[in-house]
């Protein structure tokens, strides 16, 4: 029981401790780091205990099952908890290295830990209302992180983020209530039984779609993704990596589980609609990225575009599609966060996040250039990078289902991603810096110095490289974990 609850309780307790102890900033950082290391250990223990095809379940308070609050870990959620913990570690080290401890807002560490707790909880929660509450915690933690800097543009970003996310939250709550009204269940396992029984109440499908729409809004899918590029870029680079790496992906995980395991008997035309939604998300996201010159905004739009790939695997509605989405999810969390962290280092080294005002980094920071190139290749999907295997799994399944247009579009968007990445490369690294005096002086001002920041990103890049060069163990793991998705249901 503790094995399953520990990854959830550790960040929650750490958040409380870092919030209430009127601590010295360095002590707060130490606590936070200890919390993330413990979380990493707990996530590893959970992963080993669950195994690829296994399942661990805890029903709180000793109530019988559809009534108890239940937490479940399977191969996929255990793997994602581990990825979240790894990302938390990277981000914290980078944050220590680039931001001085004595100028850190007292709320930062508790909010980071709260965000991690909510993310882990969404991965493990097994009832609808619990999911809703953890999504609220995610929303609150992100709002707090957005407002930490206290700048006017951050406040406006937080407002825009709040307005649309709140709409999604309200839709989600209404859907949860209506689903309870139609089926009498909130527990996901019990709902799966009810929704797959013959003669499903037609209302239940409608309410399930409403719930999915709410989660899709939180995932940043077309057309309701406007909150994402409006707000993300105002975060500081490490927080941007944490939020941009995890938030939308958590929502995608929920879509995958809701469609694949719970409401898998959804009519085929809804999957068709989801597929076209995925295509629109892919294309609009990448076109938005092509428009911008600010590094952070380019990468924020690429989040939207990548959500399209993730949704494509879900729309295909087979175990193979689910495995593709799961692999892409893990790859994308790591690569996206790396790119945001590297964008922060580019900003620090060259003095500005706008590509038109920087340059010359290839000569001045060769290691940074190498790290960027590796991660950019992985985002584009150049073989043999992790992005290549993710896209390969998805496009292969799309072609296997005769979805040539979907697969073709997914490949074409890869080219446009390459355009964005080469824009960053040419402008930021290749062309001479317009004002070379700004190139030399600036270095990270934090405690560990630039070495720690580089070490953190290098560590995370090595993970991405390992995924690319040796993907089969993870693919096997995820294929076993998602083997039961759409078992006997969904479009053929």
């Amino acid at each position, binding site marked *: 029981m503790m094995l399953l609850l520990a990854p959830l309780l550790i960040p929650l307790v750490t958040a409380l401790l870092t919030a209430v102890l009127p601590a010295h900033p360095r002590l707060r950082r130490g606590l936070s780091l200890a919390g993330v290391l413990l979380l990493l250990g707990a996530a590893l223990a959970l992963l080993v205990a669950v195994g690829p095809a296994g399942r661990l379940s805890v029903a709180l308070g000793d109530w019988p099952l559809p009534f108890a609050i239940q937490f479940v870990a399977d191969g996929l959620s255990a793997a994602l908890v581990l990825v979240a913990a790894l990302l938390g570690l990277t981000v914290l080290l980078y944050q220590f290295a680039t931001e001085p401890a004595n100028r850190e807002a007292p709320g930062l560490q508790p909010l980071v830990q709260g965000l991690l707790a909510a993310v882990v909880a969404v991965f493990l929660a097994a009832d609808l209302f619990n999911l809703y509450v953890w999504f609220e915690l995610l929303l609150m933690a992100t709002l707090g992180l957005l407002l930490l800097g206290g700048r006017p543009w951050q406040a406006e970003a937080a407002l825009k983020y709040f307005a649309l996310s709140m709409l999604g939250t309200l839709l989600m709550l209404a859907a*949860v209530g209506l689903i309870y009204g139609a089926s009498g269940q909130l527990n996901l396992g019990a709902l799966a039984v009810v929704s797959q029984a013959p003669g499903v109440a037609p209302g239940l499908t409608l309410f399930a779609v409403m719930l999915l729409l709410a989660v899709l809004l939180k995932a940043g899918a077309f057309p309701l993704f406007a909150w994402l590029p409006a707000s993300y870029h105002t975060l500081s680079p490490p927080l941007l990596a944490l939020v941009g790496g995890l938030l939308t992906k958590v929502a995608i995980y929920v879509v995958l589980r809701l469609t694949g395991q719970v409401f898998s008997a959804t009519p085929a035309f809804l999957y068709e609609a989801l597929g076209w939604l995925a295509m629109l998300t892919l294309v609009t996201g990448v076109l938005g990225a092509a428009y911008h010159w600010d590094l952070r905004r380019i990468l924020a739009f690429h989040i939207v575009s990548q959500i399209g790939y993730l949704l494509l695997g879900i729309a295909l509605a087979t175990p193979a599609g689910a495995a593709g989405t799961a692999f892409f999810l893990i790859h994308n969390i790591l690569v996206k966060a790396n790119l945001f962290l590297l964008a922060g280092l580019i900003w620090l080294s060259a003095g500005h996040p706008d590509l038109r005002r920087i340059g010359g980094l290839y000569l001045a920071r060769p290691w940074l250039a190498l790290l960027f190139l590796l991660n950019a290749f992985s985002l584009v999907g150049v073989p043999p990078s992790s992005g290549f295997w993710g896209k390969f799994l998805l496009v292969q399944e799309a072609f296997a289902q005769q979805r040539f247009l979907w697969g073709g579009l997914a490949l074409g968007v890869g080219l446009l991603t390459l355009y964005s990445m080469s824009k960053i490369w040419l402008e930021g690294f290749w062309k001479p810096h317009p004002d070379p005096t700004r190139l030399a002086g600036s270095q990270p001002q934090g405690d560990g110095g630039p070495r720690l920041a580089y070490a953190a990103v290098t560590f995370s890049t090595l993970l991405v490289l390992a995924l690319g060069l040796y993907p089969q163990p993870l693919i096997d793991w995820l294929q076993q974990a998602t083997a039961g998705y759409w078992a006997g249901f969904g479009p053929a």
Partner: protein
Amino acid sequence: MTLILMITISLTVSAGVLLLLSRDLFRTLVGLAVLGSAVNLTVFLAGRPGSLTPPLIPPGLDRLAAGAADPLPQALVLTAIVIGFALLCFALVLGAWISQRAGHTEVDRLRLSEPPAKDPLKPTILKE
């Protein structure tokens, strides 16, 4: 009971959407709050209200009397009210801060986080 609640919900949703479509900052926020109340009522209605039998197991029996009220939607609504109230307070303070700083409450003119493009080669998405 159901009919009254249904009419109330539809009126509240309409009011909330009308306020949300406004371009005034505070109308938008209040619109979200009104919509939140409508959603709370929906959850409440989904739990089939109307029963006056309390959800308590009578002494000597091991299950509820037939037609007892369902306590779960009320627990859900309570939780949602608390969360919604906290978020509304937060949003109102945020809105007050923003409007004080900006000197107006027009949402369209709040463009600090997304400044319009000044690049002559590119189309501006929104006019200033």
